[in-house]
């Protein structure tokens, strides 16, 4: 720069430089970096937020680096998955209202193309609305196969462990609803037993973990769950 003052070319050169800088940086995605108050640039994509002195370094060096690229693709992936989630939720949101408002089979039939989660949701709302989710009835219809199999599975488990009478279980919709709750309770109870120090053996029988202490009068879950 001119040291003599006056109409120096210095300022102009500075403007030019700034303009060039702006041009260089134009190629880069705007949300991928941030300009710091001291004029340096920070890359927002890379997890460790590297600070770069000049736009040139950002656009010519850093952006082409392997770490940045990895971070970029990761970012894109994340963005995609987020978008997917959003779509899913949106789809769910506008169907839920219909599901609640109507319990007719036509609506249910028309919903087979909706995403999986929605089917689950519908099945749940069905149950809550008092429909019978029994295996036999569900088998007849061709919709929501996943839900069906799930529920069947619970039932089988129920039958095998509790050795209860299958005909009783499938008797009425209230009982089915009860089963749903049972599953939750059962899971909760299992977790409780595990955190209290019980373990399962290969025959799904409970035994005490030898490193854990128990009250002397603690009930054996094999006994009271078996009934």
């Amino acid at each position, binding site marked *: 720069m001119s040291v003599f003052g006056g109409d120096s070319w210095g300022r102009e050169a500075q403007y030019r430089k700034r303009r060039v800088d702006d041009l260089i940086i134009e190629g880069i995605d705007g949300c991928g970096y941030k300009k710091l108050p001291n004029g340096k640039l920070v890359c927002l994509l890379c997890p460790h937020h590297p600070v770069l002195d000049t736009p040139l370094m950002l656009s010519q060096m850093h952006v082409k680096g392997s770490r940045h690229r990895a971070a970029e693709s990761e970012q894109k992936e994340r963005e995609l998955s987020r978008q997917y989630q959003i779509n899913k939720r949106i789809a769910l949101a506008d169907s839920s209202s219909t599901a609640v408002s109507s319990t007719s089979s036509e609506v249910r039939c028309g919903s087979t193309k909706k995403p999986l989660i929605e089917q689950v949701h519908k099945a749940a709302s069905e149950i809550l609305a008092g429909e019978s989710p029994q295996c036999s009835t569900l088998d007849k219809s061709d919709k929501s196969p996943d839900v069906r199999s799930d529920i069947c599975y619970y039932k089988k488990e129920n039958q095998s462990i509790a050795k209860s009478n299958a005909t009783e279980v499938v008797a009425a919709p209230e009982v089915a609803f009860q089963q749903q709750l049972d599953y939750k309770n059962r899971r909760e109870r299992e977790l409780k037993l*595990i955190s*209290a120090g019980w373990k399962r053996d290969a025959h799904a029988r409970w035994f005490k973990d030898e490193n854990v202490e128990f*009250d002397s009068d603690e009930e054996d879950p094999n006994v009271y769950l078996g009934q």
Partner: protein
Amino acid sequence: MFLYSLTLQRATGMVCAINGSFSGGKSQEIVVARGKILDLLRPDDNGKLQTLLSVEIFGVIRSLAQFRLTGAQKDYIVVGSDSGRVVILEYNKEKNYFDKIHQETFGKSGCRRIVPGQYLAIDPKGRAAMIGACEKQKLVYVLNRDTATRLTISSPLEAHKSHTITYSICGVDCGFDNPIFAAIELDYSEADQDPTGVAASEAQKHLTFYELDLGLNHVSRKWSDQVDNGANMLVTVPGGGDGPSGVLVCAENFVIYKNQGHPDVRAVIPRRADLPAERGVLIVSAAMHKQKSMFFFLLQTEYGDIFKVTLDHDNDRVKELKIKYFDTIPVTSSLCVLKSGFLFAASEFGNHALYQFQAIGDDPDVEASSATLMETEEGFQPVFFQPRKLKNLVRIDQVESLMPIMDMKVINLFEEETPQIFSLCGRGPRSTLRILRPGLAISEMAVSQLPGVPSAVWTVKKNVNDEFDAYIVVSFANATLVLSIGETVEEVSDSGFLDTTPSLAVSLIGDDSLMQVHPSGIRHIREDGRINEWRTPGKRTIAKVGSNRLQVVIALNGGELIYFEVDMTGQLMEVEKHEMSGDVACLDIAPVPEGRQRSRFLAVGSYDNTIRILSLDPDDCMQILSLQSVSSPPESLLFLEVQASFGGEDGADHPANLFLNAGLQNGVLFRTVVDMVTGQVSDARSRFLGLRAPKLFSITVRGRRAMLCLSSRPWLGYIHQGHFLLTPLSYETLEYAASFSSDQCAEGVVAVAGDALRVFTIERLGETFNETAIPLRYTPRKFVVQPKRKSLIIIESDQGAFTAEEREASKKECFDAAGIGENGNAEQMENGGEDEENNDPLSDEQYGYPKAESERWVSCIRVLDPRTTQTTCLLELQDNEAAFSICTVNFHDKEYGTLLAVGTAKGLQYWPKRSFDAGYIHIYRFKEDGKVLELLHKTQVEGIPLALCQFQGRLLAGIGSVLRLYDLGKRRLLRKCENKLFPNTITSIHTYRDRIYVGDIQESFHYCKYRRDENQLYIFADDTVPRWLTAATHVDFDTMAGADKFGNLYFVRLPQDVSDEIEEDPTGGKIKWEQGKLNGAPNKVEEIIQFHVGDVVTCLQKASLIPGGGEGLVYGTVMGSVGALLPFTSRDDVDFFSHLEMHLRQEHPPLCGRDHMAYRSAYFPVKDVIDGDLCEQFPTLPVDMQRKIADELDRTPAEILKKLEEIRNKII
């Protein structure tokens, strides 16, 4: 995150103290070191200790000494610190600061083994100073004066001896011969070489004399002699005509007189009769008092007993050494005998005290003497004594000390406007629970009920020259009550005041007449009883009044102002009328300046949110000089004049200033500076005081004008050490107040609240907190709060003491033996009317607990109601058990509700190796509405449970290095899950959701997770820095704050991506955890904040000290200081304060030579913390320096001060 660090309560403990005449002449002052703070104290005429100056030095003060050049009138201060420099300070009386005269560098900074600074000794004739290290190095500086009588210092002369440990050094008084210094040393060179340990067991301490040859300018070892291996301290004996010269060597059980070429004179230190035989007696502090004809020493033992030591000598021959019991006071770190007849005791723990000498121990008492020393086969025959109450000393003042703060919690338990700080302080019998409230303490002098609910109160003098007020005038809704102040306060009717109407203002007007303004007029009562009435025109009534001694302005309803002046004859004359645009909300006239006829300014507040300043000058009377708009209608106005001050004892330089204060209806106090000439207002500041509109009153504090603001709580604005401080008073809501002065109470306040009249005085100005102390039995360890029941549960434990019952029994035995009844002896009983102290002739607070064997522990659990200060339940633990951890726990689906878990250890011993018999966890249930505890069961564990915490309806316990999860069983706790992978000892556990933050005693934090489906605890992250954790608190999901034992405060945070990864991972990072990294957890936390506090932080809490304020981190330290770290909310503030800090570092380096940056980075480089204590030194800089720094920051000094005030107000 950037934090602003500010000390709220400076350190209250004392490390060492010296006395002398630092301001010159006859005055006696005390200089005390409080770790990193140097204070100058002086007992005032009433025997109260006043702090004249307090300076933070940003370094560690390790030793202090005073010296005086021969023939000089003034003492200098030598400071040995961790700066690797010796600093000589002089107190400047005029400007009230310490002047650094010399600063000589000799070594590296930091408290190191061989860098001098630990010991200081002065030649009694003030010719040389020796500064010593713990090992090897000793340097001698020759002090002299040049032709201009300035102090000069030489280059250092070495008196080093390698492989030598130094225990104590002192100067030897040998008149004007070459200066000699004495040192107790131990040579370990042989012990170091000998692996068998024989040499180590035979190592012998020596007393060595070093002579400074002033002619040759050289230091040589002059003489060395064996001393007892228990020798720990040296005391100079006067010489050179005043005494025999030489030194007193204080050793275990003995005091020995030694001098070169003189046989040892040895006397035994008397022992307390109840002291176990295994315990020795050591001297911990000493003071020498010298008068023209005699001298004596006061030596204090580690049990608090003071002995007077006298030497019977014939010129240089000492014939007898006598040790006589003097008195017992709490153990001190330093004793200072002042020439004015005071003894200042800087306590080791607990409050410091100032005593006055009643006698100098001439009465006969238990005495040990060198002449009667008997040596038998078992050793020397001991002398026994029984401590008694103070005979030679009487305590006249106390200086409060929080040292050490063991635990602290900020909580608003009393539902006051600001939260209270509950802190456990002190040690042994002097331990207390102190409730700190931000604000000044007040002492209530009188409360009296009035017949109705008063609306206002005033005090008036009869004559302007009177010292005391004559009347208190109280206004009610429809009457006025006049009380005269004399011996008693009683109602009078002959005062001339109209009592059938409410009053608007009552004041002294002119020189000797009184004025009462009531809604329909002004009543002017002349000294001779004549009464002049001025009536309002028409049916209009007076709404507001403003007056000073010579001027009165009234505002009528509708907004008309009428201005009166007192003329030459003392008559009140109407001068001017002025119509305002609307009703007047409030008005005030500035006080009449010195030597002037009238004040020039009238401030009028209107309901249109403006304050106008009107002129009262005859030439432009009632012209508006300036206009200030405010955020809300003003309710009250007050002009406060600050007189010019040029240094002096209690102030920095500042010119005269006129401040206009306005209390706004939204509860804000608005403060501006009014130009004394033009009346223009500038530099506006506002502060929210409370929910009610502040009413402002002018009162007198320490002879200066101060401002009392009554909002939802009272505040006082006053000037302290050159700063304007606005602090709340710890008192209830007041309606109206006036200053009060009578012969019983020179500077008081009379106020009305409800239907009561209250008279009080304001105490201990300049302090941030006022405290309420509740005594405890043993050293408090930890406490928990039960917010619902508003009670505290405290665990206390002490080593080497007897339980309460044993003490009671032995005390009784002891009194029976002495023939004294429990309530003092029979003779005293007859006299009757003795004070309370006599009822407990040996209070433990004063005398300490009788000592038991060191392996004995006593401990208790206390349930305390802090509101009534009553202990509702106190359980003493039996069988040598001591409590170390406590928490409340709610076990899920168990019937008991909240339970209390206490971790204890049985038979804990630290020496020769840490060992214990057993550890337990006790479970207590609350009964009788939480007032009483009942033991449910206790569970033996294999380590000491040092940390307990509730977690998901179970109890987490840190037992040694094991983290364990317990469930409640019928007879004991049931171990459900554990993790044994912690490195040393778990000292803290915090939980948040499913995360567990575990603090290890020397390995910082470990972040853990509990997996319910696998019943497993695992560590997923830890710290890379080995931190010796002393305090910890949970900041947010990923962040923990901790403090280490080297005085550092730090924050660690789990990086966001790692945290997300762990939360998203269905295995919770288990697979990674199994791999590990660097012999630890797979993830590492990052340090985000680092700051060296310079004091061991013992407790940390996230809290806000003001209502609606942002949360910060509040900490308490061993030295008894309380500080806070507040996060900045704007980047601009960070920039501003970091620049201010940078400039202050350059322009105002710390007093004792430690570099500020190096100090704050003593162990780890300081990170993202701005030192508010340094920034707050800005106002103490000279004005030109302030301006220079302000220019560099593109601001004015006033703006910087405003900024500092603002940020302080955000914290407290």
